[in-house]
């Protein structure tokens, strides 16, 4: 059951992601990205991480992607624009081809790296309890990682102020 669910969710995520990158229309890309994130949330559930799954849906698919959608609609530029005249050989199609080749090279390297390790290699700590409980994560966030949590609040504040600074109209 789990296995089938994994392949279904993974397939949805990958196909949606391919379409995100391949889409001409940014609006469609946003929608597809939300789909992909939804599939990922499903995978988190399979991974015994319900809290992460919920975060994924609420924050990622909900908040962040809505923000994207909002900007796309605000700016209203549905189509990819044509390339401006290239001033250097590195721009234009050659540049894009180089980018693709590089990405594929890295992909090949990752495949190679992965192929060298066994499936069950990763260390396991059988003594520890299951981590699925939200309580455990909450405790970890507010005790063990309380400092990082508080530090993140500064980060969020910076982001808020920064967004205001950047998006405010001149008066």
């Amino acid at each position, binding site marked *: 059951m789990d296995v089938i669910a994994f392949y279904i969710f993974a397939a949805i995520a990958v196909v949606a992601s391919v379409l995100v990158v391949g889409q001409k229309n940014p609006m469609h890309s946003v929608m597809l990205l939300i789909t992909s994130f939804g599939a990922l949330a499903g995978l988190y559930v399979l991974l015994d991480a319900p809290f992460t799954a919920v975060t994924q849906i609420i924050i990622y698919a909900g908040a962040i992607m809505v923000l994207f959608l909002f900007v796309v609609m605000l700016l209203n530029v549905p189509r990819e624009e044509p390339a401006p005249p290239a001033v*250097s050989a*590195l*721009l234009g199609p050659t*540049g*894009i081809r180089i*980018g693709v080749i590089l990405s594929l090279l*890295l992909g090949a*390297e990752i495949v190679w790296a992965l192929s060298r390790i066994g499936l069950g290699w990763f260390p396991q700590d059988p003594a520890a309890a299951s981590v699925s409980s939200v309580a455990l994560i909450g405790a970890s966030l507010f005790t063990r990682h309380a400092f990082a949590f508080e530090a993140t609040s500064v980060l969020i504040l910076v982001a808020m102020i920064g967004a205001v600074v950047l998006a405010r109209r001149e008066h």
Partner: protein
Amino acid sequence: MLVLIPLLPFAGFVINAFVGRRLSKTVSGGLACLVMVAAFLVAAITGWTVISGGHAIEQTLFTWLPSGDLQIPFALRVDPLATVMILVVTGIGALIHVYSIGYMHEETDGEYARYFSYLNLFASFMLVLVLGANFPVMFIGWEGVGLCSYLLIGFWFRKKPAADAGKKAFVVNRIGDFGFILGMLLLFASFHTLDFQGVALAAAARAPETATFGLMTAATLLLFLGATGKSAQIPLYVWLPDAMEGPTPVSALIHAATMVTAGVYMIARNAVLFSHAPTTLAVVAGIGVATALMAGTIGLVQNDIKRVLAYSTVSQLGYMFLAMGMGAYAAGIFHLYTHAFFKALLFLGSGAVIHALAGEQDLRNMGGLKKALPVTYWTFLTGAIAIAGVPPLSGFFSKDEILFRTFTGTAVNGWNGRPLLWLIGIVTSLLTATYMFRLVFMAFHGERRHDAPAAPVRPEEEEPGAPVPPLPGPVYSDLPAVDRTHGATHASHAHEGAHLHDAPPSMAIPLIVLAIGSIVAGFIGVPHAIWGSNRIETFLDPSFEVSREAAATEPGAPLVDVPPAAEPHEDTGRELTLMAVSTGIAFAGIGIAMYFWLRNRAASDRMARRFAALHRLLLNKYYVDEIYDAAVVQPIRLLSTSGLWKGVDVGIIDGAVNGVGLSVGAGSRGLRRAQTGSVRTYAASLFLGVVLILGWYLWR
């Protein structure tokens, strides 16, 4: 006390640099001279203490580079060697400062103060170089004098040749400095000290690297590379003749008397270390004598009065390196000392000529100046006789000492090429006498001439017509080109022909003092063979051995004796013979010059025609610049224009040094082309790094 010596000129620099523009010329110039005279007095007192006390004075100001067990203090030290140097630097420096008051009086107040601030700064750095008790302190001075030299060569930076010359000097000296720093770091890593005495001790504790290529050989070769850059020896000599674009007093002070001798001084300072690397000594001697000969032959046919002197300087420096390579350190320093007098004198004299002729530097446009410029003539003649090696003037004693030591010393590395080196030295000596008197006769005797073909006006070199990016050339090339030569400012005074005026007092006095110096300076080094006591050698010798006190503090270090200097008493007869030979050679040289350029000028033209190829070869300075151009510049240009940077127009640049600059510049432009402004390119570059590093790892 010791620190005052460099500090006084430095104070002069600070005042002139910051408030000089608001001071009148009298005040700023007077101040600059005053601090130099004061420094000279302090140096004299210090020197007297060293001479009478017989041991070094050391002053540690503070710990400069502390780190655990490695301590490098900011320390100054005066030993006999440094005594000679500080006296030369402050004494001759003060005279040249005085001379400059008259020479530079045409400049505006601001420029005048700028000039004197540079000059004072130079003196200050030179004194730090000389007084430094360890490599890093010396390096402060080493870099500092280079900087000042660069600033002063390019003093008239609106003149393109001056700007180019400054650039060339800068680049060449960086190559030398590269060697110096590496040598220094190598010594530091292996000896864990950079104090000169400490290095000498550590070197003395090792066996001389006679047949092996070891650490000391590597370090000394690197240091010698630094010396060739600073002291204009093969292969890094190309900057010095061009450096003559600077004001003449600067040529006298920096490019004749003091800075260019820094390389010689540095080797003498590390005499023990170099003595333990015989291979390096052989290289030093070979380079020295080759440079002496080559520069002497070039000097024979040059027509620019200052260039003749510049090649003569290169040649004399070659002598000094020959002495270093022979292990005759005292003789080399002796020559350094006498050379400072007569070469400064000759440069200042040529400056007086140029000053009188409103900026004319071409010998073919001179002649008959003897009557109009009596002071200049007689002093200049004294200098010429001194450098030619006519006894009993100073040049004779020092040069003869070097040649004698070359002839008699022990075999180097089992190779006894000493007679050959001596022969080349003697030939160079002949050349020296000849070209110096050629200069005297062409400038001061006969009739005033205007023979020189009008200099071909070089077409204005255009900036490479680069496409989008603005491509400022190297250091100066994008400056506004305003022609403002020294001559141009003088021309306004219309000194033309009719009433040439001799040097004004501020210029005449230094000339006379230096002339007297050129006559008598040699007497402190009269060899034993002619009933002298060669006091300078006995005085200097302690500087070239491991100091006894220092050795005593390190009981474990076995003293390996420095190869003993040849006993001077042994062969008085041989020495007298050699002396007679070199005297004869000097007179022969003068005679040749007299025949060709005084009695029978047509003969010289005939000679030039008969040996046209040779003449052209010499006139074009052995085509060294062109060879460097062909060997380095052209291939690179070909490469760079053929494909990769097709759109980039490559500027027309001459010379090897510029060739390096060009290749680097082409690389630089190529890198800039990669900076396309596209985020995608940047991400690709980032990603390329990832892929390459991982690929490298996986491939292995």
